[in-house]
């Protein structure tokens, strides 16, 4: 059997006294969409950052396709095929939207031999079109609305042609209509996206999100994090019925979710 796709083993991150991530172990296979939920301060964002090397873990290992990538440089990890997006959008504010995505198209992973500026621009447009913001291509990112910036984040990430996409609150601050739209295109991307090494199948995804009802509609499996530890794992239906999860996180909202 081939090595598992993404394996996180006993990952810990301590900030002084605070144990942001405390021995998290899980795995993601290459054809999955996984939701990562948990109360505030549970360490979801930190966990994402540990995987992408933006933060260095205190202990534990991360393996991607059998290769140990723990604590490597972010750019290196991205070029191996893991693309992150950020919870707080961080575009290059003074660059036009198209140039924002062009930067990703210029990374070693996405770069093709003999590519020149025109073709790179076309590929950037392609990614923008997929996310539905191609009409904004020439506007500087600073005048683009928050919802579109969220989509720009995704466009920037998929332009690196990832095999695994780590999305940090992609629905954060989107209107219900926009949320649905983004949810749909993520699903589409996953099923047969054009933005992956293998053109037949899209990237695997890990999605951190607070909007449970929208998340549950699109993911195959959910991991619940609380105080840095994984307290439950399973299909959406299983998780919302899990007693521990309800206590720690979901609260009374459960009735509305199940129905």
């Amino acid at each position, binding site marked *: 059997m081939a090595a598992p796709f993404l394996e996180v083993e006993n990952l810990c991150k301590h900030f002084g006294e605070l144990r942001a991530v405390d021995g998290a172990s899980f795995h993601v296979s290459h054809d999955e969409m996984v939701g990562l939920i948990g109360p505030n301060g549970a360490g979801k964002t930190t966990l994402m950052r540990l995987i992408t090397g933006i933060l260095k873990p205190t202990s534990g290992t991360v393996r991607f396709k059998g290769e140990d990538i723990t604590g490597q440089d972010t750019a290196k990890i991205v070029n191996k095929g893991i693309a992150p997006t950020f919870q707080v959008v961080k575009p290059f504010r003074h660059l036009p939207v198209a140039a924002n995505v062009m930067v990703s198209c210029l990374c070693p992973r996405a770069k093709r031999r003999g590519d020149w500026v025109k073709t790179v621009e076309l590929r950037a447009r392609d990614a923008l079109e997929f996310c539905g913001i191609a009409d904004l291509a020439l506007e500087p990112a600073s005048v683009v609305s928050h919802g579109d910036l969220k989509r720009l984040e995704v466009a920037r990430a998929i332009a690196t042609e990832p095999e695994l996409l780590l999305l940090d609150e992609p629905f954060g*601050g989107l209107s219900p209509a926009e949320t649905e739209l983004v949810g749909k295109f993520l699903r589409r991307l996953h099923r047969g996206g054009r933005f992956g090494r293998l053109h037949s199948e899209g990237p695997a995804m890990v999605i951190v999100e*607070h909007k449970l009802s929208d998340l549950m509609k699109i993911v195959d499996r959910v991991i619940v994090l609380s105080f840095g530890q994984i307290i439950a794992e399973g299909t959406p239906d299983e998780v919302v019925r899990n007693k521990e999860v309800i206590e720690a996180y979901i609260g009374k909202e459960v009735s509305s979710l199940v129905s």
Partner: protein
Amino acid sequence: MYLEIKDLTVLYDRAMVLNGVSLTVGKGEFVSLVGPNGAGKTTLLRAIAGLVKWEKDTLKGTRAGRITLEGSVKFDGEEVTNLPAHEIVRRGLILCPERGRPFREMTVLDNLRAGAFGCKDKKVVKENLERVYHLFPRLKERENQISGTLSGGERFMLTIGRAMMSQPKLFMIDEPSVGLAPKVKEDLFARVKEIYEQGSTILMTEQDVSFAFDLAGRNYVISKGHLVGEGTAEDLLADESLRKTYLGL
């Protein structure tokens, strides 16, 4: 009317953020302002608090400083549109900003004291401090902790407490629930309700429509810089098109 806004228009460079918004808040009312992100909720509160004008003044001469601000804001019968932000605060119109934003390298107590800057009477400051501690006993426990190390919920409590220290007459709360877990959210809204019941006037923006409608007596719905609906929760929910297009319910 206590707070009266007429035809408020804000343009950032060429991007229209608010387009002729008019709204009112009566004394002792709890008014909520709902709408998707990017609708202009935060900008509206910032404009009322004088921060848009401040931004315009400080960024003067850069591209980001090309801000147009038109319309009028009246508070308690007085025109406050062109007052600097710290003067507006002195009149009792306080903004509690998005995502908490405490002074993160200062202790909790120093944060609260900074909130009481406008008040020179030490006795009053002390009374206010007692009131805040009574409402949020958690803050008293953490009095000497550096506020950057607080959790998300505590941070927001601290910012509400800090705003209360400046003796607000009208309290503007910007998106209290952003990034908070459902459980913390419930707790927080219970506190907001408590503050309201103690006799404050509150204008709150919120994305989570269900919570906002639960609390507020009157609501405004804003989308793309326009007000598109106004009324009690029942009225708004009864309007089919409004519910579908703007509230997503």
